[in-house]
C-alpha cells in the first residue's frame, strides 16, 4: 500500500502533540518489562557464572559417595590429589553455655576444596585448622545462634574441639542450606574418638578428587561406573553438578519470569484502559479523516503506529531499568545462590524484553483501537453519532484470542511443556476473570443496595466512579491482583507459622529423640520418665535397601528402555522402616489393608506411602525384595497409606508388620511432650551429655528455622509481588492524570453550583476511599480464596481466616490510594478556573 508512508507521516505529526500522554499510557508497562529484563539478564549471568565457576561449585573434579567406607578405588592412583570426608547429622554442644543443637558434622581429611576456598574468620584459620589438633571450623549462623566466639570450645560426640575459626562461605553452599543444616568441620583423626561413627548413624562417606587437565572425569565414570553402581557408590562430576545446578536455576528464573510477566500483563490492562480513553478522545478526529477520504483501516493505523512507537519507547525504558535492576537481584537472592553472580548487560534479554513489550503493546492497544474502524464520518456533522455506531466486532475476538495465544506461547517457552503453559494461561484468565467479576459484583452491590438517603458527598463520590470514561473496573483489577498476590503470600506465611506454633499448645508431641541405639533405649526412656514427661511414641527403625521389584533388580532395570525404567533413586535409596500392626493418628489407609504375619513363613505384606508409590510407579500386589543388612526379605505391597508429614512425628514411607524385623539390627526414636522451653532445654542438655550420639529435635527449634527460611523466601516473593503492586500504582497514577481534566471541570462545576471547597475535597477523598477499598477488597477476597485452596490442598492445613492481616492490607492500599489521589488533586485546586474553561 502506497498509503503507508502517508499514514506514518500522519502518525508522526499527531504524535508530537500526544507524546507525553502516550508516554503516560505506556508507563504502566515499564515496570513489567523492567522486571522481565532484569530477571532474564540475571538468569543469563547466573547461567554463565555457574558454567564458569562449576569447579568451585563442587570443590573437586569428581566426587564419590557411599553410606559405607569407600576403601581404595581405581581412581585413587589416577588423581592428582584426593580428600576424604565423613558427613553426618549430630548434636553438637557448646560447653560454655550448655546449649546444643543438631548440625551437619563434616569430618575432613586432605585439602578439600581443591577449587575455591573455605572462607574463615580469622582468615588464617583455614590453614591452621588443617595443621592438626582438636580444632573445629563452625558455620557463622551457628556461632551467632549460640553467641559463640572463636576460641570457645565445641563438643562433638565425646570430643571437645577448640573453635579455630568462623566459616563465612563454603564453595557451592547456599545460605538456605546453611540455615537448614549449619555445618561444623572437624579433622578426620578424631573421627573414631567422637564415638559417632557407629551403626545406626546415617553416615555418608565422600571422596573428592582433583584431576589433571587431560583426564576427563566423565570418562572415568564411564570406565568405572559399572563397578561403582554395584557397590552403590554414587559418582558426581563437575559436569553433572553444573547441569543440575543450571537446570534448577533455569527453573527458578523461568518461574520468576512468569511472575514478572504477570506484572507486565497487569500493566497491559492499564495500557488498554488508557488507550480506550485515548480512542474516545480521538473519535472526532477519525470522523474528520473519514470525511476527507481516509479509509477506516488507515485512520486506525495512524493511531496504532503511535502506540507501537510509544510501546517501543516504554520497552526500551523498561529494558534499561531492568538492566539496572539486575544489580539489585544478587542481593535479593543472595541466600539462594551457590556462586558469585557477575553483572553484564545481556543483550538477548534486552531484545527479548523489547520484543515482548512491542507485542503486548500491540495486542492490548489493538483491543480498544479496533473501535476506530467503526467510526461513522457522520459524527463530524452530529458528534453524538460517534458513540452509537460502535458495533460488536468479530475482530475483537480475534485479538483476544491473539492475547491468549501469546500468553500461552510465552509460558510455553518458559515452562517447557504445553500442559504447564495451559495451566498458567488458565490461571491468568481465571485470576483476571475472578477479579473482574468481583469488581463488577462489588460495584453492582453498591449501586443496588446503598441507600439514596446517604449524604450528598458520599453519593456524589460513588456516582463519580461511574463517570464517563471511568477506569474503575480496570483499576480494581490491576490494584486488586497486586494486592491479591501480596496478601496471599502474607496469609500463607502466617498460616504456616501459626500452625507450627499452634502445635506446641495442643497436646501434640514437641520433642523427638532419634538415633537411639538398641542398648540405650531403656535408659533413655527412664531419663524421660524421671522428668515426668510422657513417652508418646517409641518407634524402632530398621534401615534397608531395595533389592528388586517384581524380580527386576537394579542392574536389570538399567538395561530397560527409558520409558520402562524405574527411577534409580528407588534402588539407591536407604529405606528407614518401622514395624507395627496398626496405624497412628497421622496415617490413613487408602487402598488395600494392613495384614499381620500370623505364623512364621506367611507372606509379608508391607504398606507404602501412597504419594511415594505413585511417584515411583509401584502398585498394590508388587513383590519387593528388601535387603536388610545383607539378608534378603521378600515382601508384597499390601496397602497404601496417606501419611501426613506436617507434625512432629515419625513418618515412614514403608511400614512392616510385627514379627519380621524384631531381631534385625535397629535403632529407635522416642517422642515426648515437654511443657515449656525450660523443660525442653533441660531434657535436651541431659540427653546430649549422657548420650552424645543421640540427636534431639524440638519443635521450638523447628519453628525458629522455619521462620527464618520463610522469612528468606517471602522476602524474595515480596520483592516479586512488589512489581505487581508498583504496576497497579502506576496504572492508578496514570488514570488519575488522565481523568484530571474531567475532575477539574467537575469540581469547578460543583463550586459554581455553590459547593464550598470543603465539600469538593470531601467528595474527592471519598471517591479515592471507595476506589482503594474496592480494589483492595477485591484483591483480599481473591487471596482468601487462594489461601483457602492452598491451605486445603497443598499444605493440608485447616483454613483460619487471616482477618487481622487482611485488615492491615486493606488499610495500606486504601490509604495509599487516598494519598495518591490527594497529590494529584492538589494541583487541580491550584489551577485558576479560567485556565480550565479555556481548555
Amino acid at each position, binding site marked *: 500500500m502506497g498509503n503507508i508512508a502517508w499514514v506514518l507521516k500522519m502518525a508522526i505529526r499527531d504524535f508530537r502533540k500526544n507524546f507525553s500522554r502516550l508516554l503516560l499510557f505506556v508507563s504502566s508497562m515499564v515496570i513489567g518489562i523492567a522486571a522481565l529484563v532484569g530477571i532474564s539478564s540475571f538468569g543469563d549471568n547466573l547461567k554463565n557464572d555457574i558454567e564458569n565457576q562449576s569447579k568451585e561449585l563442587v570443590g573437586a573434579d569428581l566426587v564419590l559417595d557411599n553410606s559405607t567406607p569407600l576403601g581404595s578405588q581405581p581412581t585413587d592412583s589416577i588423581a592428582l590429589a584426593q580428600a576424604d570426608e565423613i558427613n553426618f547429622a549430630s548434636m553438637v554442644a557448646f560447653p560454655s553455655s550448655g546449649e546444643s543443637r543438631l548440625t551437619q558434622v563434616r569430618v575432613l581429611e586432605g585439602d578439600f576444596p581443591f577449587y575455591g576456598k573455605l572462607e574463615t574468620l580469622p582468615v588464617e584459620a583455614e590453614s591452621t585448622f588443617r595443621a592438626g589438633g582438636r580444632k573445629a571450623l563452625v558455620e557463622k549462623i551457628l556461632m551467632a545462634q549460640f553467641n559463640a566466639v572463636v576460641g570457645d570450645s565445641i563438643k562433638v560426640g565425646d570430643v571437645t574441639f577448640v573453635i579455630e575459626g568462623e566459616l563465612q562461605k563454603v564453595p557451592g553452599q547456599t545460605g538456605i542450606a546453611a540455615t537448614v543444616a549449619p555445618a561444623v568441620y572437624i579433622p578426620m583423626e578424631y573421627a573414631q574418638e567422637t564415638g559417632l561413627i557407629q551403626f545406626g548413624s546415617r553416615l555418608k562417606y565422600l571422596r573428592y578428587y582433583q584431576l589433571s587437565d587431560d583426564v576427563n572425569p566423565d570418562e572415568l565414570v564411564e570406565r568405572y561406573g559399572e563397578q561403582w553402581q554395584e557397590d552403590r557408590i554414587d559418582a558426581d562430576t563437575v559436569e553433572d553438578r553444573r547441569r543440575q545446578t543450571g537446570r534448577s536455576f533455569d527453573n527458578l528464573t523461568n518461574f520468576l519470569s512468569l511472575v514478572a510477566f504477570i506484572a507486565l500483563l497487569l500493566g497491559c490492562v492499564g495500557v488498554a484502559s488508557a488507550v480506550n480513553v485515548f480512542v474516545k478522545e480521538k473519535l472526532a*478526529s477519525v470522523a474528520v479523516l473519514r470525511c476527507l*477520504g*481516509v*479509509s*477506516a483501516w488507515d485512520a486506525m493505523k495512524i493511531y496504532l503506529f503511535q502506540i507501537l512507537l510509544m510501546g517501543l519507547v516504554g520497552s526500551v525504558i523498561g529494558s534499561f531499568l531492568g538492566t539496572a535492576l539486575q544489580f539489585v537481584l544478587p542481593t535479593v537472592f543472595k541466600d539462594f545462590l551457590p556462586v558469585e553472580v557477575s553483572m553484564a548487560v545481556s543483550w538477548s534479554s534486552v531484545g527479548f524484553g523489547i520484543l515482548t513489550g512491542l507485542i503486548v503493546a500491540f495486542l492490548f492497544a489493538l483491543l480498544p483501537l479496533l473501535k476506530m474502524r467503526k467510526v461513522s464520518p*457522520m459524527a463530524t*456533522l452530529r458528534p453524538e453519532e460517534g458513540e452509537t455506531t460502535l458495533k460488536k466486532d468479530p475482530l475483537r475476538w480475534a485479538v483476544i484470542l491473539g492475547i491468549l495465544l501469546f500468553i500461552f506461547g510465552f509460558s510455553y517457552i518458559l515452562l517447557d511443556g504445553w500442559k504447564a503453559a495451559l495451566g498458567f494461561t488458565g490461571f491468568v484468565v481465571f485470576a483476571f476473570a475472578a477479579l473482574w467479576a468481583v469488581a463488577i459484583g462489588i460495584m453492582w452491590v453498591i449501586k443496588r443496595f446503598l441507600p439514596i438517603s446517604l449524604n450528598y458527598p458520599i453519593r456524589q463520590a460513588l456516582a463519580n466512579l461511574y463517570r464517563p470514561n471511568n477506569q474503575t473496573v480496570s483499576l480494581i483489577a490491576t490494584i486488586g491482583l497486586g494486592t491479591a498476590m501480596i496478601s496471599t503470600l502474607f496469609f500463607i506465611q502466617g498460616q504456616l507459622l501459626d500452625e507450627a506454633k499452634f502445635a506446641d499448645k495442643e497436646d501434640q508431641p514437641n520433642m523427638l529423640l532419634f538415633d537411639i541405639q538398641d542398648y540405650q533405649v531403656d535408659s533413655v526412656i527412664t531419663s524421660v520418665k524421671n522428668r515426668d514427661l510422657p513417652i508418646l511414641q517409641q518407634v524402632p527403625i530398621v534401615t534397608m535397601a531395595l533389592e528388586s521389584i517384581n524380580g527386576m533388580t537394579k542392574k536389570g532395570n538399567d538395561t530397560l528402555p527409558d520409558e520402562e525404567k524405574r527411577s534409580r533413586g528407588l534402588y539407591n535409596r536407604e529405606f528407614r522402616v518401622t514395624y507395627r500392626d496398626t496405624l497412628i493418628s497421622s496415617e490413613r489407609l487408602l487402598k488395600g489393608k494392613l495384614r499381620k504375619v500370623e505364623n512364621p513363613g506367611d507372606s509379608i505384606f508391607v504398606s507404602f506411602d501412597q504419594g511415594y508409590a505413585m511417584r515411583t510407579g509401584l502398585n498394590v500386589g508388587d513383590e519387593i525384595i528388601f535387603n536388610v543388612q545383607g539378608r534378603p526379605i521378600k515382601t508384597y505391597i499390601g496397602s497404601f497409606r496417606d501419611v501426613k508429614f506436617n507434625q512432629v512425628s515419625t513418618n515412614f514411607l514403608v511400614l512392616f508388620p510385627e514379627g519380621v524385623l524384631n531381631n534385625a539390627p535397629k535403632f529407635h526414636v522416642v517422642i515426648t511432650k515437654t511443657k515449656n522451653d525450660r523443660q525442653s532445654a533441660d531434657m535436651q542438655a541431659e540427653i546430649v551429655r549422657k548420650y552424645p550420639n543421640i540427636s534431639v529435635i524440638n519443635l521450638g527449634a523447628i519453628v525458629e528455622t522455619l521462620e527464618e527460611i520463610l522469612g528468606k523466601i517471602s522476602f524474595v516473593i515480596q520483592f516479586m509481588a512488589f512489581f505487581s503492586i508498583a504496576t497497579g500504582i502506576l496504572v492508578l497514577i496514570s488514570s488519575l492524570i488522565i481523568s484530571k481534566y474531567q475532575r477539574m471541570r467537575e469540581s469547578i462545576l460543583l463550586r459554581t453550583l455553590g459547593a464550598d471547597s470543603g465539600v469538593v475535597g470531601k467528595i474527592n477523598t471519598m471517591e479515592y476511599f471507595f476506589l482503594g477499598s474496592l480494589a483492595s477488597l477485591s484483591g483480599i477476597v481473591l487471596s482468601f480464596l487462594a489461601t483457602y485452596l492452598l491451605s486445603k490442598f497443598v499444605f493440608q492445613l485447616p483454613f483460619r481466616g487471616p482477618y487481622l492481616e487482611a485488615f492491615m492490607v486493606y488499610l495500606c492500599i486504601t490509604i495509599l490510594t487516598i494519598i495518591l489521589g490527594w497529590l494529584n488533586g492538589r494541583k487541580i485546586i491550584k489551577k485558576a478556573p479560567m485556565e480550565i474553561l479555556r481548555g
Partner: protein
Amino acid sequence: MSILSVKDVSKTYQSGNRRLTVLDQVNFDIQAGESIAIVGPSGSGKTTLLGLCAGLDSSSTGSVILNGNAFEKLSEDQRAAARSRDVGFIFQNFQLLPTLTALENVMVPLELKKRKDAKERALELLEKVGLKDRVTHYPTQLSGGEQQRVSIARAFANEPKILFADEPTGNLDTETGEMIEDLIFNLNKEKGTTLILVTHDPELAKRTDRIINIKGGKIQEEIHG
C-alpha cells in the same frame, strides 16, 4: 450536466419499536457549478440530507448519485475514496485536526491525492484566505474565524467538484460570519465549484442560485434565484 441527483431518498431511524422518518421521498437534481442552499427549521432533516448527499451515511431507500457514482452501490471505503476525489467539506464547528498545524490540516486532502506539490498548494491557499503568517499555528491557537478560514482552505485544496457546507457561519459572530461567506462565494466562483450550503440564515441563502426549503423531512418549495 447533473453532478448530484437525489432520487426518492428516505431516511428512517429505528429506536426501539418506534420508526422515525427523518427524510421522506426527497428528490432533486443539481447541475455542475450551481450553488444551492438547503434551509429549514431545526430538526427538519437538513444535516441528514447533507450527510446522505456527501456519502457520509447511507439512505434507507432511494438513490444518491454523485458525479456518476451511486453511493448505495459503493462500500464505505469506496465512498471514502469518492469523497477524497470529488468532495470538500466545511463544518459548523470547523473540525480541524487538533494535533496538526494549520498548514498540515490543509495538506491532508492533497497528500491523500498523493500530490507532490502539497505544501506549495497549501501555502498558496492559506495565503488566499489571509492566513499566510499563521501556517505553523495549531487550531487551539487560532480564533473561530481563523479556524474556519483554514477549514475553507482545506475544503478547496483538492479542487473538489462539489463543496458541502453545514451552517458554516453558525458558530461565528455576524461580522466574521460575513467575511467567511464572502470567502466561500468568491472561491466558489473562482473555481467553478458546485456548492451545497445548509443554513437557517435567509440572507445567506439568498446569495445562492437556488433555495431548497425543507420541513419535517419533505421538500416544501424550491426558490430559484
